[in-house]
């Protein structure tokens, strides 16, 4: 069944969109990530204009994060105070991101920015996660090897403006969480992602937060950052396609719940290594697009209306 998307002005098969939403939702439920980093490239691939894919992707992440955070709230695994600090940084980062996105769209370099960010961040996170889980699996097979401590004292603990985060059991400066929040907010705006895949490692290794509150807190603040990003894109560029969003969300929320049920049956290290391979595959595909000579060197963009 073909459906005409009013803002994107393209006609796409509705079941294809439901399928993409469902598949990405399943993976996001399985691995506990927002899934934005998959949905935006997939939308590019089926011919949705980049600006609309990014803005609508952010809207879709709101839905999957709400779905995810409710389960975490039940387990009291959300640090609201830390979430608020991250969010404050996130709103600043997102505002800058939307502004940069609009400027680069005008200069014709937005695709490059989005692609480079994907290769850089997905590549880095994928490799780190792969190495980490490979080590964990090796360690599990070889008992007696030294275990690395997650919570160590480093330069982060010497910064001023300290604050107590009771739910996380931390007494640290607000500067690192603000910076992490801003970086993730910036990425959310230019990549159409929630940024959970950067937020989660940063919370564990940089801020030293206990693992049990990490996913809940990250989802909590991602809801607000991506909601803000969606609004900014809608107001500054009219690029949110509600019809597209509804179809992706419908597929996505159902897929996410199924993924979560399925994920509970797999071991954590196996999940992480699978996720890292998926992340690396996406990064590799986009890197190839940049490196290989494209079939069509020219591209057509609508200019400014008189």
């Amino acid at each position, binding site marked *: 069944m073909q459906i005409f998307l009013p803002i994107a002005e393209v006609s796409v098969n509705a079941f294809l969109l439901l399928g993409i939403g469902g598949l990405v939702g399943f993976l996001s439920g399985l691995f506990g990530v927002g899934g934005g980093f998959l949905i935006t490239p997939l939308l590019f691939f089926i011919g949705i204009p980049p600006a609309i894919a990014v803005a609508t992707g952010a809207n879709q992440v709101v839905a999957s994060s709400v779905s995810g955070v409710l389960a975490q709230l039940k387990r009291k695994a959300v640090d609201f105070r830390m979430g608020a600090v991250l969010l404050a940084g996130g709103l600043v980062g997102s505002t800058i991101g939307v502004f940069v996105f609009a400027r680069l769209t005008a200069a014709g370099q937005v695709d490059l920015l989005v692609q480079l960010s994907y290769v850089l961040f997905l590549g880095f996170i994928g490799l780190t996660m792969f190495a980490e889980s490979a080590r964990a699996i090796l360690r599990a097979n070889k008992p007696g090897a030294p275990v690395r401590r997650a919570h160590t004292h480093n330069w982060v603990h010497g910064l001023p403006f300290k604050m107590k985060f009771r739910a996380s059991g931390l007494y640290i400066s607000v500067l690192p969480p603000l910076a992490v929040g801003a970086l993730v907010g910036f990425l959310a705006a230019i990549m159409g992602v929630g940024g959970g895949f950067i937020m989660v490692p940063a919370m564990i290794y940089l801020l030293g937060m206990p693992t049990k509150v990490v996913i809940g807190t990250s989802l909590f603040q991602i809801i607000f950052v991506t909601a803000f990003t969606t609004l900014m894109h809608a107001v500054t560029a009219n690029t949110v396609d509600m019809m597209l969003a509804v179809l992706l969300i419908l597929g996505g929320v159902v897929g996410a719940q199924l993924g979560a049920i399925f994920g509970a049956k797999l071991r954590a290290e196996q999940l992480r290594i699978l996720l890292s391979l998926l992340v690396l595959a996406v990064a590799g595909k986009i890197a190839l697009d940049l490196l290989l000579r494209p079939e069509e060197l020219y591209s057509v963009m*609508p200019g400014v209306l008189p």
Partner: protein
Amino acid sequence: MIRLAAVLLALLLPAAAIAQESIVAGLSQNRVSITADFDGSEILIYGAVKRDAPAPGGAPLHVIVTVEGPSTPLIVRRKERQFGIWINRDSVEIDRAPSFYAVATTGFLNDILSETENLRHQITIPRAIRAVGAVDQAADAPEFIEALLRIRTEEDRYRLAERTVHFTESTLFRADVILPANLTEGPYRVRIFLTREGKVVDHIERRINVRKEGLERWLTTLSREQPLIYGFLSLFIAVAAGWGASSAFRLIRR
């Protein structure tokens, strides 16, 4: 005196006969509604040649039909390899290019339309693109325009269909033009030309209004006129769907 009149009449008659060939035409529809399930549309353009005198012999009559969507300015960019990766470098601004342009004819355009007439009426696809300042922006500006034609032809936005207009007895004609699913809103201009020996004998113009309707219309208007409300509505749907799915599955699992 009578002889002189007869000579004058003989001289005038062929010219008068040509001038008296005119087009009578109609469209199967003069509005196209883009609704949520819009999947392209077929327009039937039909008509006849009206004559006050018998058709003059000699060169046959030909019909050219063009359908043109709303024009917009465009930017064409070219990728170049820099620092090992392919990035957009040079660009050329096009003043106006139609979002859709289809040409259907009864014969090969080279044979039935002279270059001067094409220049005057802007009939062929390259003539529909206006890029006056393009040459100043890049040394190889024509390549950019060629690329625009190539890309839009591949997208099925520009289409040249020679010898697809049915023309019966040099009098009745019909052309079917398929409008693709990816249609831009606005007035579409339909032009019909009658040519003989490369010269345009008569031409007429009709209009088709392409408009989003229903939900499509409502969403587009809301997103442009009330973007903040539109944004909040999108968020509301997202939050409601996320919450709904998680509570529905909790019920199922119990």
